[in-house]
């Protein structure tokens, strides 16, 4: 048997293992039906015409038909309508795939040549594997350290590119326990085809056991260490120097300057991951209202903070509760006063467009 000669579990169609998979497959079946219908029609006509109207005599001289308006309208209109149906149906399924439900648990994913690093909200970290319970909704916040990668789980019918310098999102709810392939689908260099892993979808009990087995010292802790080590604490423990970062995650933050220009009072942005990332990488992009431009906060570029460390910092900021900011200690002396370090207030309304 061919099957036994070659390796395991030969299959022609992927497993449906996520909540969106049936919708994607149904749409696929519809397009497939249209495909088969039209292709078979064309092939049958081709063969039938080729046989029926084969050249019978060398002096055959059939009369040309230059056109037939109703026929031409017919074969333009019908495919157009079918295409419109596909388009709208496609948009509908796609919006299910891309718009994450609000209650999704967030998992951070960093792609780098040539591995996937994943980080759970509780700080558990994994490389090239992802453990999740069946039936819960997860949102992946995906970025890359170096080149573009793409995070793909075919059995879930989802995929998103991991682009350096951006956070992309993808969500899913696994519906079937099992082990599923995880691939990098954007060519990323020498070991591209080894940038693979497994998604383990577990029953809830197995999952909680797995969670407990994972050692202490997740990213919350890592992030806390970094927060001290990188001197964030010297400013962010003193509300006069810098905004306190307690419970700011997913809150609206009022900003005073954007890209160096003052903005109208009341301008707010959501402090989600991308905002926090931007605040650390490019402090001057948006300045919290009440602080001066340029910001006294140093630019933490990649040489100072890797993408992975950045996510650890974000995890830590997310976990910061009211009054949790550690006090400044001897190990973290006050930084040198920087130029423009004085706290100034942007005159309200000044420079409004």
């Amino acid at each position, binding site marked *: 048997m061919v099957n036994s000669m070659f*390796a*395991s579990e030969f*299959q*022609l*169609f*992927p497993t449906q293992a996520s909540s969106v998979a049936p*919708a*994607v497959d149904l*749409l696929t079946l519809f397009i497939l039906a249209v*495909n088969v219908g039209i*292709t078979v029609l064309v092939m049958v006509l081709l063969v039938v*015409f*080729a046989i029926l*109207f*084969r050249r019978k005599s*060398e*002096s*055959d*001289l*059939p009369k*040309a*038909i*230059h*056109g*037939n308006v109703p026929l*031409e309208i017919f*074969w*333009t209109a019908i*495919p157009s309508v079918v*295409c419109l149906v596909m*388009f709208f*149906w*496609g*948009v509908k399924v*796609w*919006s*299910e*795939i891309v718009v994450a439900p609000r209650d999704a648990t967030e998992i951070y994913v960093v792609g780098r*040549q040539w591995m996937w690093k994943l980080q759970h909200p509780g700080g558990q970290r994994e490389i090239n594997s992802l453990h999740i319970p069946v039936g819960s909704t997860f949102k992946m916040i995906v970025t890359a350290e170096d*080149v*573009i990668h793409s995070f*793909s789980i*075919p059995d879930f*019918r*989802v*995929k*998103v590119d991991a*682009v*350096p*310098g*951006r956070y*992309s999102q993808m969500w899913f709810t696994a519906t079937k326990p099992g082990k599923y392939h995880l691939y*990098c*689908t954007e*060519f990323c*260099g*020498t*070991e*591209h*085809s080894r940038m693979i892993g497994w998604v383990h979808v577990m029953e809830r009990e197995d999952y909680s056991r797995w969670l407990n087995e994972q050692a202490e010292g997740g990213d919350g802790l890592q992030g806390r260490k970094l927060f001290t080590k990188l001197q964030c604490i010297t400013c962010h423990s003193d509300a006069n120097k810098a905004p306190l970062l307690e419970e700011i995650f997913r809150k609206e933050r009022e900003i005073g300057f954007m890209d160096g220009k003052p903005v109208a009072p009341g301008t707010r942005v959501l402090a989600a991951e991308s905002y926090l990332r931007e605040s650390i990488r490019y402090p001057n992009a948006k300045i919290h209202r009440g602080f001066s431009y340029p910001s006294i906060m140093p630019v933490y570029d990649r040489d100072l903070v890797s993408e992975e460390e950045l996510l650890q910092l974000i995890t830590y900021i997310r976990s910061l509760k009211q009054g949790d900011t550690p006090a400044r200690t001897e190990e973290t002396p006050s930084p040198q006063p920087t130029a423009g370090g004085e706290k100034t207030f942007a005159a309200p309304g000044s420079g409004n467009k």
Partner: protein
Amino acid sequence: MSTINLDRGLIAGADGGTTTAPAKAPLNYLNCESTVASWLLTLDHKRIGLLYLVGITAMFILGGTFASLIRFELLTPKGDVLSGDSYNKTFTAHGVVMIFLFLIPSIPAVLGNFLLPIMIGTKDVAFPRLNLMSFYLYVGGGIFLSLALLFGGVDTGWTFYTPLSSSYANGNVMAAALGVFIIGFSSILTGLNFIVTIHRMRAPGMTWFRMPLFVWAMYATSLVQVLGTPVVAITVSLLGFERILGVGIFDPRLGGDPILFQHMFWFYSHPAVYIMIIPSLGVASELVTTFSRKGIFGYEIIACSSIAIAIFGFIVWAHHMFTSGISPYAAMVFSFLTFSVAIPSGIKVFSWLATMFKGSISYASPMMFFFGFIGLFTIGGMTGLFLSTLGTDIHLHDTYFVVAHFHYIMVGGAIMGYMGGMHYWWPKITGKMYSELWSKVSAALIFVGFNFTFFPQFFLGYLGMPRRYHEYPEELQVLNVLSTVGASVLALGYILPLLYLPGSLFFGAKAPKNPWGASTLEWTECESPPHPHNFESNPPIPDHVYDYSQLSKEAVRVSH
């Protein structure tokens, strides 16, 4: 310079500048001069077409060799034949050679060069010297590119995505980019030449709507070449600025945006797909009417749909980027626009079928290639619908489904059309008939081999097998083995014409003037092979280009 001296008017008699032809054979463009220089420095569009034929055939063999290596490696799930790095360099080389050095020049530079002036009743293209220059740009760029790919290699894929290509890949990225840049100019100059030729050089009486559909296809293709290619030249130049001078354009570390590269790259490279396929659509139109001996159905619509495809081709590029994080509105707009390209292509297929309806269909081998073309192009086009639909593209993007889809279009469609065209015009180009039997065997092998190679890849793609994987999970082996076996049959189908076509030069029967009973000028007014100046005097232009009732009885009788 001993090239043949073309005086500017159509000449009626002997040409003083040419060496004398052998006594028996009538003067033609092949025997008028035979020195090496008369070939290498020729300004005759027909000879330049043949020079290109030699060039692109060599490139096809090179690209095909890379393809065989890829399929051979993928026979087993483990990477055993090639290392990861060499595998990446191999598929990059395969893509770059096949796209830039074979497919883009194929039909326009060979058949277009040879036929376009004849089909519109003139004796050369508007700028013969420019034509020769495009050829040497092609040769120069081609050699440069091939050396870069063979020695050292490039491991970025033919898409050169940043920041991989700008900051991480270590191969000859810049040499390859320069090669692409040079080739681009060859393509631009050919396009420019054709556009001016069609506008300015049509014989008296040759109105726009009397031009053969192949000429319309050439016109549409040239528009894309002239408008699209500069963008890829700009893109690779920017890549150079970033890679060599460290100017931040695409790499986020330098403050650039990697997605910008994708926009610029696809702005050219999606239309480039049409540079490859529109000429084949043109060839198909010629084949179906000639071998049905019946005027084409919907001439104007087919002509205009070529132009429509060329224009729409420019506004769909971001359908390659649905997973890269473009705005949702952009995604919807580009998905919608992509569907609009499907319509004119569909119209063409239906019009061809209507042309066959109640025709007198000959089974000559070019028609066999046409049948194969329709089959493969239809599957290729239809499977594109899965990729233009947003909901399904997310799953299929960057998998083997895409690989299968575009090979159906670019190998199934474009190369099948090219093969059909070569077999159709071979008697005109060389004056010799090739073996009908072997050419039919070749058409059949290509059709069967092709489907075996690429059909399994649709399943591989739906199962999620990513593109450009050197190693793959074991359960996918069966389908990969099928694909490799099919590729061997396909290779055989391509090797055959490399033998019997040149063979016909020595053993083939002499081709009559109009062996197929066709109605366009190259058959009705030109000898096989044509006179150095194509026509002895201005050819008469019939009112309808595909009017077979005008054919003399003899012409109809010699055909089979």
